[in-house]
């Protein structure tokens, strides 16, 4: 670890540490090359970059769903060898069980941990309320809109009370209006839950709007090109933020950095 990185970890505790991770898929496609990055505790960090920069691969390695070819990932100082209780995943396509009701889906992580039904449904019910789906407990996923399905996915991840939430383009399959509302809600969840969020997105506006820090990833070779902390004002209304010159400047700056990589 470099001296500068040491200094950072002294000031804010680090939740997730990715150290020189390389991932080569069978067939020789290099998704990540010697990636080193740290995620501070209690913050929402976005992984932003054009497609092919390995952001989803990195997230899946942190989740323990993929094994790195070399390098290590530590969560709270402990090496990641597979999925673990301290991490929960929110999937791009929601990954809900179509045969299970909203409440059972939301409680599924707890069900797998062996918690009894009353207890787990009480906890899941609380998070269903937090994500704004109170009253929908007994519906099935196919009866919900895309945005509502992803709220169930979020409730499921929150219910297991993991310290680190890994979100893989959670809003990309959700329509634009719903997405904006969802982004506002996620900010509240981040404030209330005191968890570490790692958020993969390809939307610059989304990254700037929801993140405390943005890791800008670039492809060929994949690397962290820059860490940006968009210190935009959070005390003003969501609509005011979206018109705030600081917000717009950061969006513009990131776009200038990325545009050369977009065909």
């Amino acid at each position, binding site marked *: 670890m470099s001296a500068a990185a040491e200094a950072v970890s002294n000031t804010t505790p680090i939740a997730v540490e990715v150290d020189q991770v390389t991932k080569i898929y069978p067939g020789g496609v290099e998704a990540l090359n010697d990636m080193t990055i740290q995620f501070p505790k209690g913050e929402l960090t976005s992984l932003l970059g054009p497609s092919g920069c390995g952001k989803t691969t990195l997230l*899946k390695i942190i*989740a*323990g*769903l993929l094994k790195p070819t070399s390098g290590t990932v530590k969560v709270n100082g402990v090496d990641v060898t*597979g*999925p*673990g*209780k301290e*991490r*929960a*995943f929110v*999937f*791009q*396509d*929601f*990954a809900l*069980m*179509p*045969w299970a009701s909203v409440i059972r889906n939301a409680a*599924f*992580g707890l*069900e*797998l*941990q062996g918690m009894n039904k009353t207890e787990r449904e009480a906890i899941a019910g609380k998070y269903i309320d937090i994500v704004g789906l109170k009253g929908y407990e007994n519906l099935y*996923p*196919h009866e919900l809109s895309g945005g509502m399905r992803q709220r169930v996915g979020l409730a*499921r991840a929150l219910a*297991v009370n993991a310290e680190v939430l890994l979100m893989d383009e959670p809003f990309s399959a959700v329509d634009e209006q719903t997405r904006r509302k969802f982004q506002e809600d996620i900010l509240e969840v981040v404030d209330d839950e005191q968890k570490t969020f790692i958020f993969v997105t390809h939307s610059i506006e989304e990254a700037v709007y929801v993140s405390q820090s943005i890791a800008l990833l670039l492809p060929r070779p994949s690397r962290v090109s820059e860490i940006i902390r968009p210190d935009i004002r959070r005390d003003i209304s969501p609509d005011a933020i979206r018109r705030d010159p600081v917000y717009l400047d950061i969006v513009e700056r990131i776009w200038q950095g990325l545009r050369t990589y977009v065909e």
Partner: protein
Amino acid sequence: MKIFGIQIPMMASLILWAIVWEIVGQLELSILLPPFSHILIRMVEIVPTATFMNALWITAKCFLIGTAIAIVVGIPIGVLMGRSIVIDRMLLPWVNMFLSAPLTALVPVLMTLFGFGTKTIILTTVLFAIWIIVLDARAGVKNITPSLVDMTKSFQANFWQAFTKVYVWAAMPEILAGIRLGCIRSIKGVIIGQLLVSVVGFGRLFELYSANFLMEHMWALLFVLFFFAFLIAEGLGVLERKFEYYAASRN
């Protein structure tokens, strides 16, 4: 279907064929084709007899036991094959071979091993039904959305939980299709088994009727069997359609 703007019921063509059959039968062209009406009368006559009921009971018993074994053994094998490449490589050639093999030829072997009784018939039924159930369960598991598998792993399901709480359910549309096709093959198996064993159940009746050229009895018996086969296939089809909604919402 509509003809001249009049809605024709689904099975209308069957009535037409029955009429054709009746005419041909009345012409007494062949002993093999008695008039349709005679067959219906014979059906009413033989169905309530003790011999028939006994044969039906044996057939139903062998069918149910055989199909149940095929389902209970076939689904787990199919799911395992879908999840594990090693198991898949080891079993797939055998499953494919047995699926298309002329299984009837194996029944005499079963007879020498298990005798001329219900055991052989049940085993024949299993042998006919199980392979398509295995293949469909395997296909269902292979079709599970990758993210659902990742979800199962990321919430740390153990092997048993993943199997019973996710994989089997996610593959349910294909598994049900497999069960339906398996049942149809079961019916074939249970009849062919009895025909070859030919001393119990419908096999004995077929033997009796054909040896004595009782064609009306023969046809009556066949119609009853066709009817049951149709009923089972349709019933399972209805069940399958109930699960279709989530096959569409899986991806």
